[in-house]
């Protein structure tokens, strides 16, 4: 095996695409023969729950990686790769197929006219204006807060909140799921006590951790990247792109 201690790619590297072998329970990636892999899920049967990577380079202080392309089949609900069962693969946030969350700045924490805690976050887009009376699609998904200091009283780390939509400038966090819009009483507002200290952030917290990673449409193409830092015991999976077309 060649060991290149520093390499300049003036030319273009090419990778031969390999097809993994599989059966009803396992998919096999053999790193001895390929770096880029692709599987057409139209050919698999059942839910494959084991992700076996063979001939993983082993040694002290090395990191290995490969790419896997997935072509969706016509029966994604019955014939699929069961990433939930593949516990040797870790995903950002534990979420299969969703990009890492992005934090958003809390511009201010203030008290509104009713004494409720109001978050100002310019352009938060937690719900579209048209959905104010019924709760936007995002308002049923939880958000979480982080801070460089201390969060406002009533808001805790690692805790789910939901949002009342008011405008794209501000929203009201609720301790329970908001199923309809502001003023309908469907959520549980937080009484304002203080704004905390430091800089606060919020981010969407996707609770559907075990969502199927693949685009469900027949023939849809998704590409994933896998990296191991421990000679193949654990693989860190990331989504390169979903529904590439």
């Amino acid at each position: 095996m060649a060991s290149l201690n520093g390499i300049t790619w003036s030319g273009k590297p090419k990778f031969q695409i390999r097809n993994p072998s599989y059966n009803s329970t396992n998919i096999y990636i053999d790193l001895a023969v390929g770096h880029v892999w692709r599987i057409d899920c139209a050919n698999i049967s059942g839910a494959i729950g084991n992700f076996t990577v063979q001939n993983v380079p082993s040694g002290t202080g090395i990191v290995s990686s490969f790419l896997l392309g997935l072509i969706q089949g016509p029966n994604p609900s019955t014939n699929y790769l069961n990433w939930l069962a593949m516990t040797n693969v870790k995903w950002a946030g534990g979420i299969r197929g969703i990009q890492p969350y992005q934090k958003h700045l809390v511009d201010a924490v203030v008290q509104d006219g009713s004494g409720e805690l109001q978050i100002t976050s310019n352009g938060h887009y937690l719900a579209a204006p048209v959905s104010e009376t019924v709760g936007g699609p995002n308002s049923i998904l939880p958000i979480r807060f982080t801070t460089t200091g201390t969060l406002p009283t009533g808001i805790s780390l690692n805790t789910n909140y939901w949002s009342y939509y008011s405008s794209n400038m501000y929203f009201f966090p609720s301790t329970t799921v908001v199923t309809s819009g502001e003023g309908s009483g469907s959520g549980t507002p937080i009484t304002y006590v203080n704004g905390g200290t430091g800089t606060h952030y919020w981010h969407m917290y996707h609770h559907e951790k075990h969502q199927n990673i693949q685009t469900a449409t027949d023939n849809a193409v998704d590409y994933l990247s896998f990296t191991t830092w421990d000679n193949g015991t654990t693989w860190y999976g990331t989504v390169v792109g979903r529904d590439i077309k």
Partner: protein
Amino acid sequence: MADLQRPVTINSAIIGKKGTATCTGTTLTIDIISGTYFELDLQNLSGDISTFRMENYSAGFPGGQSYTLKLIQSSTPRQFTWSSLIPQLFFAGGSAATTGPPNWHFVHIGGEHPYLSQENNAVNIMSIISPVTGDNSLRDVAWLVAMVGTDFQ
């Protein structure tokens, strides 16, 4: 150093080397020539990362370089102080330190500073791409930082 000037076909795994990296006080240090992957437990930090030191940097490198950081969050959550953080570069051979052009800085996707997951032992992975040295354009001074993922589980 090998310079592959023609297309090369690769039919097996690509292996990267883990380099030497440490964190002490509020300084994160990597030996940039020792590898392309750097793994760090932030537990040893005494505060947020205010200094990002890269040793054995090769200014004459004819192109951009990329590397990956795997950061394990400490029991007291740490972050990068991106707004004031600049790359501190030290040349190979122990030559005098340089901080490079005064406008050297890190840039991020959409201008959003990457934020590490706060949970203890959370795995955060980020990718950093160096400026194209030898180019006198603005690309010379911007280090691109992209979060690969946070809180892997």
